[in-house]
């Protein structure tokens, strides 16, 4: 070993090796930290993969026994161990559809209010309030639905609906009595109220992303507020709005607690929206701990798999759409 010159001063070989040691230690620390963070990132991927694989393995017995019949039949009989998922799938889709039909127009109109009509000083408070409401756990909406909304609907709204549409061909089956209070319509309404803050805050964010120049140009031409919304803001943000709606739909499809309280848990497909039904998540929540026998448990896990696949597709589309609008803005 020779002496080295370091910063003008002569440094002994001893110092140089110590320095090299210290540097090596730092390098090792760097490599380890890099590997650990990378491992954590991979773990997130593994998590999703793990969920998929675990559900697939769990649902294998049911899918092997029933095959395609599992998604095409609606008998759900724990005693004879015959399980078909059609009724929960139908319930999930219909309640989410009701929720979106109500929440989307409301959400868009509120977002329009927040971005175009609302006085400046009120925008932040209302925006914050909506975001806070988006964070309230779904069980709160569920308990409210059970004790407040369901009795209210049973007493006032549902009898009126039955009476009003009693003589109109299609609508009379859609709103056929008796008014239970709980049922598909109530579940859809609760979901709508729950999803509303999501749809609103995302729509507001994408509306805000419209360059002011575009809107000002339209206003300068003499466009009314509505025309600016209709012909400038909506076309510009279409992809983002669809993404936001899909995100809300993903929430509605997978929502458990808000629905379980008010759906009635009846495994049959009824023509009437007022009849009790069930959804995938409500079925799992209600029956899983009481499920006796491997086939029963496995059928419930298979339901979970179906739900996961549906929401995965919906959420993937949502993210893709939101990503597209982000790229355009950024």
């Amino acid at each position, binding site marked *: 070993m020779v002496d080295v010159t370091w910063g003008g001063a002569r440094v002994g070989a001893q110092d140089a090796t110590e320095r090299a040691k210290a540097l090596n230690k730092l390098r090792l620390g760097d490599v380890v930290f890099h590997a*650990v963070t*990378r491992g954590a*990132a991979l773990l997130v991927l593994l998590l999703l993969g793990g969920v998929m694989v675990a559900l697939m393995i769990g649902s294998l017995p049911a899918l092997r026994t029933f095959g395609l019949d599992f998604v095409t039949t609606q008998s759900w009989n724990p005693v004879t161990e015959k399980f078909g998922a059609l009724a929960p799938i139908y319930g999930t889709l219909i309640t989410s559809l009701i929720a979106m039909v109500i929440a989307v127009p409301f959400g868009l109109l509120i977002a329009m209010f927040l971005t175009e009509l609302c006085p400046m000083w009120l925008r932040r408070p209302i925006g914050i309030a909506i975001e806070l409401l988006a964070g309230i756990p779904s069980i709160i909406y569920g308990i409210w639905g059970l004790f*407040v909304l369901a009795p209210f609907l049973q007493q006032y709204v549902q009898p009126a609906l039955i009476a009003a549409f009693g003589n109109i061909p299609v609508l009379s089956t859609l709103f056929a009595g008796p008014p239970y209070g709980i049922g598909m319509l109530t579940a859809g309404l609760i979901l709508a109220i729950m999803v509303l803050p999501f749809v609103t805050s995302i729509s507001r964010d994408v509306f805000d992303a419209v360059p002011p120049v575009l809107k000002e140009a339209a206003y300068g031409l003499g466009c009314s507020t509505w025309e600016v919304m209709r012909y400038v803001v909506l076309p510009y943000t279409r992809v983002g709005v669809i993404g936001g709606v899909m995100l809300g739909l993903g929430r509605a499809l997978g*929502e458990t607690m808000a629905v379980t309280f008010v759906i009635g848990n009846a495994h049959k497909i009824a023509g009437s929206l007022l009849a009790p039904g069930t959804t995938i998540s409500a079925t799992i929540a209600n029956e899983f701990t009481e499920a006796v026998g491997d086939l029963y448990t496995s059928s419930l896990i298979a339901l979970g798999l179906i739900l996961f696949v549906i929401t995965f597709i919906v959420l993937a589309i949502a993210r893709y759409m939101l990503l597209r609008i982000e790229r355009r803005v950024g």
Partner: protein
Amino acid sequence: MDNAIYKSRRRGNALATIASYTATGIGLAGLAMILIVLFWEGFSGLSLAVFTQNTPPPGSAGGLLNAIVGSLMMTIIAIIIGTPIGMLAGTYMAEYGRHDKLSSVVRFINDILLSAPSIVVGLFIYEVLVVPMGHFSGIAGAVALAVIVIPVVVRTTEDMLMLVPNTLREAAASIGLPRSLMIRHIAYRAARSGIITGILLAVARISGETAPLLFTALNNQFYSNNLNAPMSSLPVVIFQFALSPYEDWQKLAWTGALIITISVLVLSIAARALTGTRKAS
């Protein structure tokens, strides 16, 4: 100027404006009503006994002590498990692999996990923890909650580290700081309040989660600190009590719902205040 067209345009605008005002009114009123009913029902049942007594059998008085303790324990463990994993993954995406393929895939998957149905997480943990262990347990519930914590923390950590100015990193590199030390001592410090915000939001998110606990932690009528046994939690107790026919139980369910809502609101407001001061400074 064509008068008819002008009039119909005005009418259209008036209609849309009114619809917008009404929608906002109805929406806000509906959401306000939920909170008002909740506060009314919840406060009328609130007493010291709620925090000092265990959940009662039907027909007698009691509190929510075991449920509150169970919820706290599982939440804390979930945060202890989920936060490091989430932070490290977020660090990789923002610091090491900002533009590589792995990061964009993880980002996409993470966003999906962020809004994936939580009941599916419950099923997953049931399959991988409850079945091998042979029984329901508090630790399974905590792990299920941790799975929900991870994506929230990943997302905020990444976002917050992205906001750290690159000049800080360059300055650190220029004085010879290794990358890992730069991240830990410079980037983390600059993004600290943002990352804490993420953790607070994660706590808020899991404090009301019911579905993943239903068949992992199950429920326990008695006071229990044993993580290896079924454990009670506020949301599950609310679920059970609200659907029961007993009035005492329903009352307690409302009170529990109030406790959860207040803690979620406090956490979200604290998180907001934290990021607010960061932006201001």
